[in-house]
């Protein structure tokens, strides 16, 4: 796991280039998919093709093998990296090749074929310009699509000038590109073997699709007489026709290009003549096109992943990099921190745990905060945060439970095999909150003492620079129990879910919600209820989260059966009820709660839409306000409801568009991640201090967003429901 020092150093050295490039890709993605009328249909089609293909994988592999062999090529299915490398070394050796040119391929990096060939004395040249920069610099990729994303133009110029000592020092991107093109051009025409990856391989015709922009993959195939394509077994899909949604989605989802310059659809061996580039006599068409083609399909753990219900979806991944670019933490640290041996970004947890093992996934898995911003960005709809949670749970269980004696009283959880102390503390925050309220204000004073903060830092890894929540003595549930409903002949009846923070810390927003709902003719009850399980889930404590989910549904079920709607203030808890519980509960229990639950503004929006008016609420005339929605709320498509209601109440609203505030529940409290959290938060701070925004009061829907904004700005933010209460 990266330490605070390592993360700080990475952000210093690479952060600026990473941030600029990933945010550029991410903005490009929004623009590019926005122009696609049938975007959601294409994503559904892409997912369904992958889902079916992985289900039918053994048959497709048989069909593909037959087809490629009938075409005159060879298929080799390699069990693991060593097996694949041995085969490729034999091919290169048999061809007596001095030089192998390669186009970009993650799978070839996974098996480290370069090292294997170099050990045999073969000159291996990466021809993708980004990969070549890294080969010259002897550095590892920091991004699955744009591998040298962490290097600035200046640093590349410095590298080239130092290494190659050109007559005129290189400076501009054009000069660097031309230099690389010429240098590599000679090496490509002189090579015997070309190694490529394959983005997709179709079983019907044995056609492989290569998605590139530079043209190096085309040259790698066209200029050599032996073509080795290296791909994971999961790349096979049934037909050429099935390529359609992927061709439209892969560039848009990744770097935000509508389509990359070249999509090569190769059914090897191709007809292009194999020419001697120094020949000044023979016309091109008189060379013959004798080519050897080897398709090396790599298992290396994938077939086991296919049998693993939680990792299986990873195999749908088309390696577009949307989950990297849309990830707030990745935008700050890149793949050198948020990545394993080969893969980086959110989906890397699935790949690395399946291919390398849990120990590699553990090195970076914590950097996924479960914000879900990658979920809608993924063109094949993989539940990437879900995979991260399951792997975190497995990592927790893989270890001995440390220091149980310290937190025994604080951890009434279901984690028999234990999770690290810090995770158990945050995962059981409900117990802390109950104790905090019961003993407030003494608990608040005690917690803020220097001795207490030092102990929290040392034992629990809670960063002393963070303000701690202040517990209220009277919880929302206590307050509600002591008063009567204000509504006669209610329009609707609701149960307001007392989420942990609203109940113990931000009680005022709960009171405001009750008052607003009553003003709109809703009869409201606020019964005691267990916390949602969000806290343990985000620590990878799935059994504990499931226990919460079961108890929450037991508590709310009678109210739902009694005809009450469930209204939720905290978006991350609403997302538990409507999204995460699907993995934790049986179908009927999940449907019961998911279909009855509404985020509070979604509910108000519905009431207004069905005849209620804002007359009974506090309204304004054009008052300016800045609104930061919540990551999981946006993933559920519920940002617009808050904006619409605020506008109907007379507010002039501007919204932030950063992917995450950086706090992400407990993440920003952790000593190792505090500075990263603040770096992510800095992007929100910049937007909230922009011209025309800096004087606006700020409202935000999420508890941790409110905490983060409070730390970022002088202005103290509020939950928007507090604006509506009279």
């Amino acid at each position, binding site marked *: 796991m990266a330490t605070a020092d390592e993360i700080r150093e990475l952000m210093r050295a690479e952060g600026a280039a990473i941030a600029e490039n990933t945010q550029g890709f991410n903005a490009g993605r929004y623009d590019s998919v926005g122009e696609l009328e049938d975007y959601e249909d294409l994503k559904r089609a892409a997912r369904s093709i992958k889902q079916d293909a992985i289900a039918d994988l053994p048959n497709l592999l048989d069909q593909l093998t037959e087809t490629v062999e009938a075409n005159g090529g060879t298929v080799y299915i390699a069990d693991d990296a060593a097996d694949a490398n041995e085969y490729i070394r034999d091919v290169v050796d048999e061809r007596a090749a001095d030089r192998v040119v390669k186009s970009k391929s993650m799978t070839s990096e996974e098996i480290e074929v370069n090292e294997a060939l170099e050990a045999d004395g073969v000159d291996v040249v990466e021809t993708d310009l980004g990969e070549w920069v890294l080969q010259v610099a002897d550095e590892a990729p920091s991004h699955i699509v744009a591998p040298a994303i962490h290097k600035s133009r200046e640093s590349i110029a410095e590298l080239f000038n130092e290494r190659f000592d050109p007559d005129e020092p290189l400076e501009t991107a054009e000069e*660097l590109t031309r230099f690389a093109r010429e240098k590599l*051009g000679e090496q490509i025409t002189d090579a015997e073997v070309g190694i490529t990856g394959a983005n997709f391989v179709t079983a019907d015709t044995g056609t492989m699709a290569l998605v590139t*922009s530079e*043209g190096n993959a*085309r*040259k790698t195939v066209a200029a050599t007489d032996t073509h080795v394509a290296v791909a994971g077994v999961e790349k096979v899909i049934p037909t050429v026709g099935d390529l359609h949604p992927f061709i439209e989605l892969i560039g848009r989802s990744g770097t935000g290009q509508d*389509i990359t310059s070249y999509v090569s*659809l190769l059914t090897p061996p191709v007809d292009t003549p194999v020419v001697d580039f120094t020949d000044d006599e023979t*016309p091109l*068409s008189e060379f013959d096109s004798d080519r050897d083609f080897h398709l090396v399909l790599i298992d290396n753990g994938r077939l086991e992943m296919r049998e693993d219900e939680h990792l299986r979806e990873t195999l749908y991944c088309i390696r577009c990099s949307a989950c990297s670019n849309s990830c707030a933490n990745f935008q700050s640290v890149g793949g050198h921190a948020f990545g394993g041996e080969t893969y980086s970004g959110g989906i890397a947890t699935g790949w690395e745990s399946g291919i390398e093992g849990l120990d590699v996934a553990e090195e970076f898995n914590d950097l996924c905060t479960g914000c879900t911003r990658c979920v809608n960005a993924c063109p094949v709809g993989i539940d990437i945060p879900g995979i991260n949670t399951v792997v975190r749970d497995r990592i927790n269980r893989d270890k001995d439970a440390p220091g149980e004696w310290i937190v025994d009283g604080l951890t009434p959880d279901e984690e028999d095999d234990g999770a690290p102390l810090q995770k158990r503390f945050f995962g059981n925050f409900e117990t802390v909150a109950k104790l905090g309220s019961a003993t407030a204000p003494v608990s608040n004073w005690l917690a803020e003492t220097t001795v207490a903060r030092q102990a929290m830092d040392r034992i629990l890894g809670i960063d002393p620079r963070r303000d701690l929540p202040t517990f209220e003595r009277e919880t929302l549930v206590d307050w509600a129990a002591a008063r009567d409903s204000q509504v006669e002949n209610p329009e609707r009846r609701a149960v307001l879910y007392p989420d942990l923070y609203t109940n113990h810390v931000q009680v005022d927003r709960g009171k405001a919600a009750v008052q607003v709902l009553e003003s709109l003719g809703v009869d409201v009850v606020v019964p005691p209820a267990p916390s949602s399980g969000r806290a343990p889930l985000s620590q990878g404590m799935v059994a504990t989260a499931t226990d919460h989910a079961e108890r929450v549904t037991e508590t709310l079920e009678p109210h739902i059966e009694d005809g009450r709607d469930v209204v939720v203030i905290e978006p991350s808890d609403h997302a538990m009820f409507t999204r995460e519980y699907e993995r934790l509960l049986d179908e009927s229990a999940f449907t019961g709660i998911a279909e009855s639950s509404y985020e509070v503004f979604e509910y108000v929006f519905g009431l207004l839409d069905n005849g209620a008016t804002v007359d009974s609420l506090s309204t304004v005339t054009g008052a300016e306000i800045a609104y930061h929605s919540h990551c999981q709320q946006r993933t559920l498509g519920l940002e617009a409801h808050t904006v619409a209601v605020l506008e109907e109440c007379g507010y002039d609203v501007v919204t932030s568009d950063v992917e995450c505030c950086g706090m992400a529940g407990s993440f920003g409290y952790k000593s190792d991640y505090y500075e990263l959290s603040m770096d992510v938060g800095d992007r929100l701070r910049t937007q909230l201090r922009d011209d025309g925004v800096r004087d606006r009061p700020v409202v935000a829907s999420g508890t941790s967003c409110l905490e983060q904004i409070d730390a970022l700005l002088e202005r103290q933010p509020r939950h928007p429901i507090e604006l509506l209460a009279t």
Partner: protein
Amino acid sequence: MESKRASFEGALEALGVTVSSTLESELEAAVTEAVTEPAVGVGLDEPAGDEAFALTETPVTVDPTPVALREAVTGVTGAELGIGDYGSLVLTMTEQASELVSLFVERHVAILHEKDIQPDMDAAVAELDERFAETNGSAIIATGPSATADMGALVKGAHGPEEVHVIIVEEGA
């Protein structure tokens, strides 16, 4: 037909690809105008026997040697399909080395029959699906010039051509 072509030309313009159009009978003049010398090319075998498509009356060296290819600025080839919504060209790989001629040059001039413009990617892939099933063919869907952003800014002309020009051959005459 007009709308497919209009959307195709609009997409090409957005990609920075220049376009000219010609009648079959005037193809050679259009090619001569579009190339920057030295130019090499692939003999276009359709329609069979039509002299214009042999490019004999142009500065283009048809079926060049490898050395002539590497010294050329422009490469002239046919394009099998155009794709309306993306401005893409579908290039084939022939024994005449059209892949080399369209790739190892700075300027690629592609000759496309107007009737081969497909409305969108969906239709183009369906067409390729059908053709590949029959012929085990290969193709490149080429969209705009070769490009890279790996050197710190977007640069046109990475390993492949820096400029692309499309000549649309109109029906009739």
